[in-house]
């Protein structure tokens, strides 16, 4: 009997502890449920219908999904999104880290440099794209003009299938590396100064300091950064929509642009919702794989 009441008290205590922890999450979860989860569920409902401008048209069950999986464009566009992740994420992480290290040293006017590297991030996607479209213009763009001044041949940066993705990547790096840099900076601040002092006493050179103190110290931030950049670049839409319109042809057509066109240009909202859910599923698998990979490394 005593055993029972002790067990009951323990489980009540456990429940109380559980609830008090969750209480800290409630302020986030409430808007999250109402303004994200619920629309996602509604989207799921829409994906089971043919849903047009007029609203619900008819129930088609899983037909939309079958249609998508039979569509060549689905696989092509998915691959395009993956491709961008492969070329972009290493670029932006490495470059962001380099800039953070550059700016973290004692150097004159480092606040100025910090601001300059961050500056592009405050611009909206349409402005960034507009500026870079002009600069990368085959005929009168700045980039080709400068190359010509050095006697080098220009290129069709946005309409040549070989260059289109790199143009998108460079534009995106210019735009967003400032944010990566800032997060790495915050991470660098967290590494205790005395670690470095101890290392200096031990006679470590800068490479060794970097490898054994800085990198491990940044591992937490690095993990989230990579995780976030992979997801964000999988969702690439604005730049390929504005700069290349998915082109040349459909070379740079990403999955999200595919969803956007299906929904907003073809009025096929049910189909677009199905595409979104499939995409979400695929991303879940990727992030789960990422998570496992990252955590394994930590051990």
């Amino acid at each position, binding site marked *: 009997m005593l055993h029972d009441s002790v067990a009951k008290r323990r489980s009540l205590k456990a429940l109380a502890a559980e609830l008090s922890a969750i209480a800290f999450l409630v302020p986030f979860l409430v808007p999250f449920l109402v303004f994200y989860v619920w629309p996602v569920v509604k989207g799921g409902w829409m994906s089971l219908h043919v849903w047009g*401008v007029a609203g619900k048209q008819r129930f088609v069950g899983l037909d939309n999904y079958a249609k998508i999986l039979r569509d060549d464009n689905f696989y092509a566009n998915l691959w395009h999104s993956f491709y961008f992740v492969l070329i972009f994420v290493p670029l932006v992480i490495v470059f962001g880290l380099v800039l953070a290290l550059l700016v973290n040293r004692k150097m004159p006017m480092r606040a100025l440099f910090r601001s300059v590297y961050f500056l592009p991030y405050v611009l909206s996607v349409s402005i960034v794209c507009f500026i870079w479209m002009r600069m990368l213009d085959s*005929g009168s763009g700045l980039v080709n003009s400068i190359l010509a001044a050095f006697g080098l041949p220009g290129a069709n940066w946005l*309409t*040549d299938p070989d260059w289109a993705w790199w143009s998108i990547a460079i534009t995106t790096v210019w735009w967003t590396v400032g944010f990566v840099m800032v997060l790495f900076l915050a991470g660098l601040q967290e590494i205790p100064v005395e670690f470095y002092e101890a290392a200096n006493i031990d006679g470590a050179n800068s490479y060794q300091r970097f490898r054994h103190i800085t990198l491990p110290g940044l591992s937490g931030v690095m993990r989230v950064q990579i995780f976030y950049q992979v997801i964000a670049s999988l969702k690439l839409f604005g730049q390929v929509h504005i700069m290349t*319109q998915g082109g*040349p*042809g*459909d070379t740079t057509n990403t999955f999200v642009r595919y969803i956007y066109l299906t929904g*907003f*240009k073809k009025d096929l909202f049910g189909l677009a919702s199905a595409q979104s859910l499939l995409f979400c599923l695929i991303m879940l698998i990727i992030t789960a794989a990422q998570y496992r990979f990252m955590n394994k490394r930590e051990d």
Partner: protein
Amino acid sequence: MKPGKWLQTTMVLTLAAVMLLAGCGSNSNEEGSGGTTTSAAETAETNSGPVEITYWNLFGGGEGDFADQIVKNFNDSQSEIVVKALRLESNEYYAKLGTALASGKGPDVAIAHVDKIAPFVKANQLAALDEPAAKAGFDYADVTDSNAQSVVYDGKHYAVPIDTHFHMLYYNKDLLDKAGLLTADGLPNLGDVSPEGFKNFLTELKNKLPDIEPFAVNVPYFHEPFYNLYYEAGGDLLNADNTQAAINNDKALQVLNFYLDLFDSKLSDVNDKTPWQTFHDGKAALWFGGVWEAGWHFGEQNLNVGAMPLPPIFGSEQHWGSSHTLVVPAYVDPAKQEAALKFAKYYILEGGKIWGQAGHVPAGKAVVSSDEYKNLPYRKYFIEAQKTVKFAPKTDKYNAIDTSIQEVLQNIVFKKVTPQEGLGIMEKEINDILAN
């Protein structure tokens, strides 16, 4: 610095709290009145003050300024109706209009392209306008016949067209003159008006002026140059009752091969993403440009430019066109519908004079035949070209069809599929869409 950080946080939170309360205050006023529709309806009933109608349009930049001027003139010209315009220039305009129409929370009158209204009509989201037009004293006979016909569904009018817009052949007189290809009348000496003849003309241009692009083609919006020549060839997108694709045929193939040949021969630059700018900068001799570019090109001091209807290279003078119309959502109450039609009437009879300056051909018969309008540069050619415009097929699936065609055209132009393959894909996709 920790206490400083707390000070900052407290300040920001206080500021936020103040703003929050300020925001809540003004917003609760909005919600209390239940939105402009109800309050203005009450106003109309009690007859105490002018009827206020909200007007959404998608005009930006210079065009938008003309549109604003027309609204201002209308408001100044009478005191029963006040039009409040909201400029919403964006590629997402129809997403916004669509959600507004579906939810019942939107404007009292809005601009819509004529080829976009079919789905809204089918969904019963637009008001039939014959009754409110009668009450407002607006007669559709004042509108150019082809325009008036373009907005009829099931025998009723569902919009008021305010213009037609399409492409003209803009030509750089100085460049053509230098190449010796300008006639005494200042027109391009096109010679044999056929695909081969046109290509020869361009080749001669290129030989005489090697640094100039003979013919700028709108590659980013390639469906427009495609439709232009395809319609000239007598082609259609769909069959007569809009149930089947009719695009996979020799005419389409010829047109596509024609353009691809021009790109391959470097008579047109397939990599130019801003061909309108190339022409405007004097780097291209010919350009199938929109009528809406008229003001821009003609106003450029360094540019000696002329405009003429598209030459019937592929046989006929039929070419692509669209038109802006005013639509009234179905949820709008009768008093406001009438007010909206009075505004439309003004647009047709008076506003068109200003609207014509923006380059579009106004839909009001009176304006188009007025001297004022005809005296605008090259306007007689615009009027002539308007007569052979071909609008999009009136199917509620047009958006999907047009988007599909655009996508495949891009793949064709950039050699990812052959024209034959491309047309086959288009046919299949269009039939899928229609069958849905």
